[in-house]
């Protein structure tokens, strides 16, 4: 029995959802994502029902909380990443339904939706915890409801259903503000569309009142902000606990970033947007989108104005927005553009198909040829997006904090970032419950650090300037001694000492003599002192370096570079000045290096490199110092 149109559409949407979900899950970040600072804070907010940075994102927080509580796999960060993957895949399925609502046939709508699904900006956001994939889902859902309402409102037999649907559409629209407040900019487009489809709606005050009530009910989620304001450290933002601060947290947020560029920068900003558009849809896809815009304008004025106004307002606003990661802000407009692409392809198919029908008698053959033509451009785009956005081995943050919290002595203190900037560390304490004995002085309500406590810190706290710990947190003239090196420069565990470490010694007898000289620096030898644990390797290296010149050194296992740093971590010059060791002494580094948890089990060669910096560029010269056994 043939499927009804509705059934076939549902099945196709479900298949699109499944395919995209599989792709996103295959490339999903397994835990807290690096870099993406906002993502770390959003993860913590979702897992603890906290309060995210401006503009608060209440719906995101609640849905994220549900994901962390209901999914039985991975840690909370993995689960909020899965939320992005799931809602991202749902966005693509909804893009298909939207394309169908504007008259695009099934095969072409599938192509348009998948083109959006494999676009690199969107895929990148579907594998990490961020608001953009969930927001795309809410934008798509709202838009689909609006188009569905319009279809029902036009037909006499479904008019009553349209009346019931309209307030629901308004409710979902109000809710969508909780994944990104910028959706408010779509209001003129929805209002115009409503009037174009059903101008007599203004004569039905009850319908309008219900819709307004639905919208306000959805938008009422922002009452969450003042309710949670007192319980969460919102640093560096002022807590939204007064009307003025509430405004600054929501509708008045980021005034310095809005319309940031002068008129003279307009060509550069427009070109930036076009570059991003072509990067996501290709040159042909972009051209097809333009064809789609004109086609929609010609065929269906109401739907044209809805989609065009949404698109134009969004692009106009964000092309003038001064965020460093402006690319992700265009995702909702990319979703709409994918629909334009679908309409453009449909216009071409409508011209070509009758011509083909005269030559090829079998309609199935024509359909198969069309499917092939549409599938071909998707293959290389999928491959490219998969490679670029595959975050399945991003375990930097999780590996670092699990090792750092394991290596800390009992009842020590770890000073990380404050408020939103400390979310990564707070996550491992509050959500995973690791090392409750370790004091986190930057945590809200933490007691003062008792005298004699061994203090540790990270580069995030040291380099944060006004966003870091308050002045006086660290002793004057402290020495920051590296203890554990993570797999990115931002993740190093320092011990804060008041006396200098034994950085240069007169005599040294390394267990393994190496005597390898590169670029003036000699690696005399290496020890593997006790202290290896699952998760890190402890390595002691001995160096002779020319005075006043600290080489950049690096560590790797197999072909995987674990870290790179300046020998002595910036302490050598001060050490020479203040401690004044005997000339010709040996520089000693005794640190542990985090081993990525995705390393394959088995033995791996452990190598230390001296990074040569000369006319030939940078090239580490590696020396084998031992072997690492990964369980």
């Amino acid at each position, binding site marked *: 029995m043939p499927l009804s149109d509705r059934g076939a559409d549902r099945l196709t949407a479900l298949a699109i959802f499944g395919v995209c979900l599989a792709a996103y899950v295959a490339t999903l970040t397994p835990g807290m994502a690096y870099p993406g600072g906002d993502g770390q804070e959003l993860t913590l907010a979702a897992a603890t029902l906290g309060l995210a940075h401006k503009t608060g994102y209440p719906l995101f927080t609640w849905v994220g909380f549900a994901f962390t509580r209901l999914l039985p796999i991975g840690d909370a960060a993995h689960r909020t990443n899965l939320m992005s993957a799931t809602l991202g895949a749902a966005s693509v399925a909804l893009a298909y339904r939207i394309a169908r609502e504007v008259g695009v046939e099934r095969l072409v709508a599938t192509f348009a939706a998948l083109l959006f699904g494999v676009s690199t900006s969107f895929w990148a956001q579907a594998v990490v915890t961020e608001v953009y994939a969930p927001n795309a889902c809410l934008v798509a859902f709202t838009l689909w409801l609006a188009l569905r309402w319009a279809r029902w409102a036009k037909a006499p037999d479904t008019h009553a259903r349209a009346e019931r649907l309209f307030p629901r559409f308004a409710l979902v629209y109000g809710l969508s503000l909780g994944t990104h407040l910028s959706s408010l900019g779509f209001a003129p487009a929805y209002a115009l569309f409503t009037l174009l489809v059903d101008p007599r709606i203004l004569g039905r005050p009850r319908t309008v009142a219900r819709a307004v009530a639905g919208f306000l009910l959805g938008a009422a989620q922002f009452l969450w902000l003042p309710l949670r304001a007192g319980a969460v450290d919102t640093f560096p933002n002022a807590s939204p606990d007064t009307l003025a601060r509430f405004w600054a947290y929501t509708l008045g947020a980021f005034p310095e970033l809005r319309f940031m560029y002068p008129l003279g920068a307009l060509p550069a900003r427009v070109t930036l947007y076009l570059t991003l558009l072509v990067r996501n849809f290709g040159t042909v896809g972009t051209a097809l989108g333009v064809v789609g815009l004109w086609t929609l304008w010609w065929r269906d004025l109401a739907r044209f104005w809805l989609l065009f106004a949404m698109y134009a307002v969004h692009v106009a606003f964000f092309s003038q927005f001064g965020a460093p990661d402006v690319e992700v802000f265009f995702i909702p407009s990319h979703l709409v553009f994918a629909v334009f692409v679908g309409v453009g392809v449909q216009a071409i198919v409508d011209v070509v198909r009758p011509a083909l029908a005269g030559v090829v008698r079998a309609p199935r053959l024509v359909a198969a040829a069309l499917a092939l033509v549409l599938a071909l451009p998707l293959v290389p785009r999928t491959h490219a997006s998969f490679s670029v956005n595959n975050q399945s081995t991003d375990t930097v943050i999780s590996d670092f904090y699990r090792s750092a919290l394991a290596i800390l002595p009992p009842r020590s203190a770890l000073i990380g970032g404050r408020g939103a900037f400390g979310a990564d560390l707070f996550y491992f304490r509050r959500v995973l419950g690791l090392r409750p004995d370790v004091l986190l002085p930057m945590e809200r309500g933490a007691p003062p650090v008792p005298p004699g406590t061994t203090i540790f810190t990270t580069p995030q706290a040291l380099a944060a300037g006004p966003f870091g710990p308050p002045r006086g947190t660290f002793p004057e003239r402290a020495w920051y001694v590296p203890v554990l090196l993570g797999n990115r420069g931002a993740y190093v565990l320092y011990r804060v000492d008041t006396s200098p470490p034994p950085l240069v010694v007169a005599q040294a007898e390394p267990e393994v003599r190496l005597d390898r000289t590169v670029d003036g620096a000699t690696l005399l030898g290496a020890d593997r002192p006790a202290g290896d644990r699952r998760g890190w390797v402890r390595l002691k290296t001995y160096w002779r370096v020319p005075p006043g010149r600290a080489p950049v050194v690096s560590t790797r296992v197999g*072909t995987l570079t674990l870290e790179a740093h300046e020998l002595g971590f910036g302490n050598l010059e001060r050490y020479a000045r203040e401690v004044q060791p005997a000339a010709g002494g040996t520089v000693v580094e005794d640190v542990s290096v985090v081993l990525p948890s995705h390393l394959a089990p088995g033995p791996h060669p452990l190598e230390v490199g001296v990074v040569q910096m000369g006319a030939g560029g940078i090239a580490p010269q590696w020396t084998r110092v031992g072997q690492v056994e990964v369980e």
Partner: protein
Amino acid sequence: MTGLLRIAGAVLLTAILALGGWSAHHQSTLAARPGSRRDPDLVGLLEVYGENALMIITVTEGLQSVRVTPETAVTVRDGPGTLADLRPGSLLAVWGRPSTTDPMVAAAITAVPLQK
């Protein structure tokens, strides 16, 4: 009303296409940033830097080295910058000189500091 909206739509579409075309042409004639008209050759996080070279950890290719020269055009966010503005932990997009292979000589670098 419908006629007016149709005309307005056509005018706006034409204007937007003209603005896009003019902007692209305007930018291509400026050629201030040698690599900005194509995808970067390398994208990653700046790990360490020396006098004439950078080490970048990329997602796909691990640790990569890049040579920098006084001619390397540096952009920080959307404004002009210098090599001294590059900080470890910044996200870098690097465009190489066309004829160079290994190590790449950077013609242009765009840096986005990731710290808030």
